[in-house]
């Protein structure tokens, strides 16, 4: 069953009406990575990137000395979330690899920092994105990379598009 294929039968009149206008435009594909569920994943990454970055900048500007390590790690996490969001949405060759490593980095980050925050609580007395496995963000930082890696594995590079996009 195709979730993102261009050949599927469309039976929504509203969508058909909207399509009629731009059906002649050529479509560039990145293997279906940024449509369907992928689009939701990208949107959640975008929200997380924004909230993590803004909060880290705010904490660093106002209260850096309270927990420098935690805040710097939050800023790093925010930056990598931005990279991941843009790479996931990109159609350029190489963006698949970049998003894979960005998402993998986040998984490693949340696991390492999450473990450290329980082992060395003194370093993470103040809230950060990755501390306690992202509990301050509803564990989204822990769950999202897993979903992201699964999704990316199913939607490989455009070069090998037909494999990834099928099913």
């Amino acid at each position: 069953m195709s979730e993102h294929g261009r050949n599927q039968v469309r039976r929504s009149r509203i969508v058909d009406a909207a399509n009629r206008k731009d059906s002649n435009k050529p479509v560039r594909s990145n293997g279906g990575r940024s449509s369907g569920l992928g689009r939701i994943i990208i949107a959640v990454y975008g929200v997380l990137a924004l909230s993590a970055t803004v909060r880290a900048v705010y904490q660093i500007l106002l209260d850096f000395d309270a927990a420098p390590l935690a805040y710097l790690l939050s800023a790093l996490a925010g930056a990598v979330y931005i990279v991941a969001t843009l790479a996931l949405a990109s159609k350029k060759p190489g963006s698949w690899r970049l998003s894979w490593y960005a998402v993998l980095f986040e998984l490693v980050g949340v696991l390492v920092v999450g473990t450290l925050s329980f082992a060395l609580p003194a370093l993470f007395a103040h809230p950060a994105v990755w501390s306690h496995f992202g509990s301050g963000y509803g564990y989204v930082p822990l769950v999202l990379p897993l979903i992201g890696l699964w999704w990316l594995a199913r939607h490989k590079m455009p070069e090998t598009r037909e494999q990834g996009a099928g099913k």
Partner: protein
Amino acid sequence: MIVDGFFIAGAILCAVAVLLGVLATIIRTYPDDFALVAVALLEVFLVVYGIAAAIRQAGGQAISGEPWEFWGYLLTALLIPVLAFVWAVTDKSRWSNTVLAVSGAIVFVMLYRMEQIWDGALPA
């Protein structure tokens, strides 16, 4: 009280939008017309709700919270069904229905909050 009638109507519309969105996610692989129409109706409701609120406020009815907060919520809520609709029409996948369902849930939370600000009748 007139406000509660609006709240009940809005809550029902939100529930319908959520249910249709979830159901369509399960049984459809494209955006479902009924789910789209439900979200469009929700937008119409919010417009009517806003007009009614403006009339009541212009008529001098007291508001228990901050008026700017109420209108801030309303303006944001007005954007949500539109965004979900555009998302669904441009994405054209099974998951567009999920987005429609989530938009209904978000609007419900905002409507609940608006009612609290308006008359303070609902528990926090």
